[in-house]
């Protein structure tokens, strides 16, 4: 049905294109990073975290930060295509629509990961918490995958609506809760060094979400971008 290599080729091209756009403008990563750090700072004042509470609440604060900073990335990713109606250029090309979905999704995921990897050491320094934990990195990977899979699909919808920047968080956050709750739980347990038996349920949920949503994205993206 779909020949795999050309399909992957298209996906890779779109990711590279988004990376190239970001490389030349360098707006997105910088804004997301600054935003993330500001959010962490605000949490500091809002929650008055003392040293003990910090390590327990770290995973929650981190994931709340990623959730908000992520919307910046999604908005930017979609507005590149909206400017000059570049999305039509993609739709004119003889490529599978779903390849566009996966391409944008991987691009969004990539930017989220960059921001996460830059935020972690900053958080670690500010709160004297060791965040370099293989398990945590795995959860961030799964969480970013889940986030971008639902976020890319919804951003494509919001892009075509009125007041799109207001609409995206409203559409996104209710559907994102399984990812957030599981990611916070799994990250927290990894940081506390608990046994895997406690962590598996959350990881399984992240995996399940990470299979179901991209599958739906694959099926629905065409309906979202067609006219």
């Amino acid at each position: 049905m779909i020949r795999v290599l050309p399909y992957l080729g298209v996906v890779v091209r779109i990711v590279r294109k988004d990376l190239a756009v970001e490389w030349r403008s360098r707006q997105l990563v910088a804004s997301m990073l600054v935003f993330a750090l500001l959010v962490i700072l605000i949490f500091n004042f809002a929650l008055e975290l003392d040293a003990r509470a910090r390590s327990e609440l770290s995973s929650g604060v981190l994931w709340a930060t990623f959730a908000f900073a992520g919307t910046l990335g999604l908005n930017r990713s979609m507005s590149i295509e909206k400017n000059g109606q570049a999305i039509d250029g993609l739709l004119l090309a003889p490529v599978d629509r779903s390849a566009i979905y996966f391409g944008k999704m991987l691009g969004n995921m990539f930017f989220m990961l960059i921001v996460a990897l830059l935020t972690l050491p900053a958080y670690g320094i500010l709160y004297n918490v060791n965040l370099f934990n293989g398990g945590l990195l795995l959860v961030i990977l799964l969480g970013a995958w889940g986030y971008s899979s639902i976020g890319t699909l919804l951003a494509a919808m919001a892009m075509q609506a009125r007041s799109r920047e207001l609409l995206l968080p409203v559409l996104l956050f209710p559907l994102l809760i399984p990812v957030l709750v599981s990611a916070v739980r799994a990250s927290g347990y990894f940081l506390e060094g608990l046994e895997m038996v406690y962590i598996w349920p959350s990881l399984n949920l992240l995996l399940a979400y990470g299979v179901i949503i991209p599958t739906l994205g694959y099926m629905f993206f065409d309906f979202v971008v067609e006219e």
Partner: protein
Amino acid sequence: MIETHGVSKRFGYRLALESVDLRIKAGELVALLGPNGAGKSTLLRILSLLTRPTVGEVVIAGFHLPMQASAARAEIGFLGHQPLLYGELSASQNLAFYAGLYRVKRPEARIKELLKLFDLQFRSNEPVRTFSRGMQQRLALARAVLHGPNVLLLDEPHSSLDRETVAILDELLQAQADKGTAILMATHNLLHAQRLAQRVELLVAGCLAASWKRSQFASKQFLALYDRTLRRAQTGAHRD
């Protein structure tokens, strides 16, 4: 090359196109004339497969749509109101990206050739958002013909262009038509149509109202005939 049978398009409750039957052969350059809001852009979007008709059949380069849409897209070049370019990327980067999507053979050579043809080779590494309207349009045109399509669809390509670019555009269109490309150009400027086209179709309020061959519209009396036909078609449309 381009065929439509009974194509209609409805947006919500508004009927944008009604029962359009069109036939354009290879090497034919047809101008689609009509007032604003007639549905020219909608028709072009349907022919470029960006939009699906509500009713009706479209055949492009022998491919029946929507089943063979992907194959058909490789044969279509489209120039719309918007440049369809990534402002942050350079001209070469934009063309290279599309060359990859269209699987153009020997892309570097082709890109170089086009940049030279459209006189963009000296600004080829600057971000496109710094380009003037004329340059963006030239680049958009380059993108449209990059993959050597057999069908060219242009939506008011001459609008707000400098004389130099208009000359390049007209030369390109003639060359493409000579090569056997079927070209449909929407415009509300009668002079451009008269200069370039072999046939003119008039679209008013979503319906094809009249069709004239070159021999008919090259004459001086044509302007009066055109105005009469246009007015008659417009009053007729309001009566529905």
